Structure formats: C-alpha cells, structure tokens
C-alpha cells in the first residue's frame, strides 16, 4: 500500500502533490487514513510503527551517522527524492509512542515538517504535552474528512521554505507567519471554530507558540 513519494525535482510550483507519512499500528485505522488522504488528493505512505517511520525518514541511528546534522537538510533530502509534507501519528503505539516519535522528528533535520498527533482518548495533559513538544494539531479519533480539512494550512505551510517570510491567511481563519531568523512558526487559532465539541480536544483557542 505504500506509494512512491512524488519527486517534483526542483521547487513545487503549481499543482503540488502533498505527501503524508502516516504512522498507526492498527491496520483498520491505516486503511481509513489511506482512504481519507487519497480522497483529499494527498499521496500517503503508511507505516505501522515509530521505528519504521524513523527508518523511512532516514533518522535511524545507523542512517544518521552517514551524514552530519549540518549538512543534511530537508531540501537536500528532497533532492534525494524524499519529500514529506506532513507526518500523522497515532499517540498510543507499542514500543515507540507517537509522542516519542514527535520528539525525535522535532530534534532532527525534519523539524520543520508539521507533525499531527491522533488519539482515541481526550486526555488534556497528553494533548498539551504534544502541543508543547511541537505538534501542530492533536486530533481525536476516529478521523473524518472534516479533520483533514483542518490540516490544509499545515500542508500549505510545508511548501514554504524556512528562509522566506510568508504572511497568509486561509479559509479556516488561521494566521500563519514564519520568522526567518529562527524558523519558528507562530500559529494563532481563532477560538470558537464551528467544530463539534466532541471532535476537538478541550484546548481549542489556545495560542500555540
């Protein structure tokens, strides 16, 4: 079920193909994720563990030792044909949890790639922990198409190179600004979005820095 990442060669100009790396240990849920992303015109690679995700991102210790952190950048990985616009991970997985994976990604050359964590449980401390560690969103399962629409701004953001300053607003009302000096992304979410309360975790309206 894995697809080849779309290699656009140089820059993504018109008609970009978003490539999502989805991590979930449940086969049933991977099937749903695959369908949801394809319905949203994204390419998706599905793996069943955090270790497999790291392997795909070439972040396993054996792979990382082949290049220094300073020379490996997302752009050079793109030159090698490896492009990931978004990482979606389940929180509860045997072995490496989604949180552990999030930490590893945010401490690597893939740190600018948005990471979204999913969970079937609405645990506020878990949610804030993930958001503080750099997760862009925390979505409650089971996922629906409307949840993927929320990911649009993050996917669009991933097309912008860190060196550029972008100020744009999307239909969902999020303001996205990239700070060129430290590559931090500030996302301000408007409170009281029209999502049903059961679908969003209780920290809606929290400014994420």
């Amino acid at each position, binding site marked *: 079920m894995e697809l080849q990442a779309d290699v656009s060669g140089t820059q993504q100009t018109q008609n970009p193909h978003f490539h999502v790396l989805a991590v979930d*240990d449940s*086969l049933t*849920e991977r099937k749903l994720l695959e369908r*949801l992303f394809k319905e949203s015109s994204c390419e998706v690679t599905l793996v069943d563990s955090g270790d497999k995700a790291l392997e795909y991102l070439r972040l396993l210790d054996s792979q990382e030792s082949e290049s220094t952190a300073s020379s490996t950048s997302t752009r050079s990985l793109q030159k090698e044909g490896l492009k990931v616009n978004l990482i979606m991970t389940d929180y*509860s997985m045997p072995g490496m949890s989604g949180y552990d994976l999030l930490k590893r990604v945010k401490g690597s050359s893939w740190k600018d790639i948005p990471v979204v964590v999913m969970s*079937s449980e609405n645990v506020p401390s878990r949610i804030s922990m993930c958001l503080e560690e750099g997760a862009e969103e925390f979505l409650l399962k089971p996922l*629906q*198409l409307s949840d993927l629409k929320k990911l649009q701004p993050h996917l669009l953001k991933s097309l912008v190179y860190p060196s550029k300053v972008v100020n744009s607003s999307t239909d969902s009302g999020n303001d996205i600004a990239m700070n060129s000096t430290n590559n931090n992304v500030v996302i301000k979410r408007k409170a009281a979005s029209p999502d049903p309360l059961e679908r969003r975790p209780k920290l809606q309206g929290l400014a994420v820095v």
Partner: protein
Amino acid sequence: MDKNRHLQRQLDMKRSLLDQGYLDEQFIQLEELQDDDNPDFVEETVTTFYNNSARFLQNIEHTLGDCPIDFPKLDNYMHHFKGSSSSIGATRVKNECTRFIEYCQAANAQGCVRTFLQVKQEHAILKAKLETYFQMAKSRIAAGAPSLCRSKNTSFAEFASYRKYKLFRKSDIVYRYLK
C-alpha cells in the same frame, strides 16, 4: 424484487442499525468515502477489522487466563481494539470496551471476565448484521438498483432522489448525535 425496494430495504436496515446503537456516524463517514473508484471500501474496512479483531480477542482471552492477570497488558490490547472498533463506527462494541477498560484499570478480574463476554457478544452480533447488510447491497447491485456510492453512471434523477433521501437521513442522525 423491484430495484427501488432493494435500495429501501438496505436503507431501512442501516437506519435500524443506527437507531439501535449498533453503528454510529462513523459508519456513515465510511460510506461517504465510497465511490466508483472505491466501491467496496466499507465492506473492505469492516472485513479488515474483523480479520484483525479476532486475533486481539484471542490475545485478551489468553491474558485473562493468566495467573496473575497482567492488567496493563490487557489495557493495551483493549485500547487498541476499542480504537479499531470506533473507526468503523461499532458503537456497542466500543461501549463494552470502555466498560472493560474501567474494570481493567481497577484491576477487577471478575468485572473484566464478565465484560469481556459482552464485548465478544456485541462483536459477533454486529458481524452477523453487517454480513446481512452487505449481502443486501450485493443483491441490490445485482438487481440494477442505484448505487449507494457516488457514481458517475447513475442518472441524475436517481442520484438526486437518493441524495435527497440520504441528506434527510444524515441530518436526522446529526441531530441525534448533537443533542
């Protein structure tokens, strides 16, 4: 049978499954993802669920038979099973899983054993009902009735009348979900 009666039968059965709480809105979401390119998506997903869940139920059963019972292990298994159940909209199964997890976290072995029987029962009942439902779908398609998928081939009139019915039902369900 008249092809529209086929459609009606299937829709009535789905309505009944929703009303009785066997399935919830998530099942509707799965059907929304079905189209000409993925005409069997719902049945495939349900089949995947049942193929995998059997293994988890066995693991839980074995773990319940251990002495002493490894409750954290049971908790992990059941969380996984509950997550998969909810992804196909299996409400009653999911609710029994929740009860099981509560007993598990209280290290209540008897409660776990009792509730596990309920989990297995709901799991089996839903399987039988969904098999009937998918069989109805196959009969309907064989009779040439309009597809429940979003189809390029369905005539606009057929699709519009089905869509109107479906939107009516969906708004009904959304109302119940929100209240």
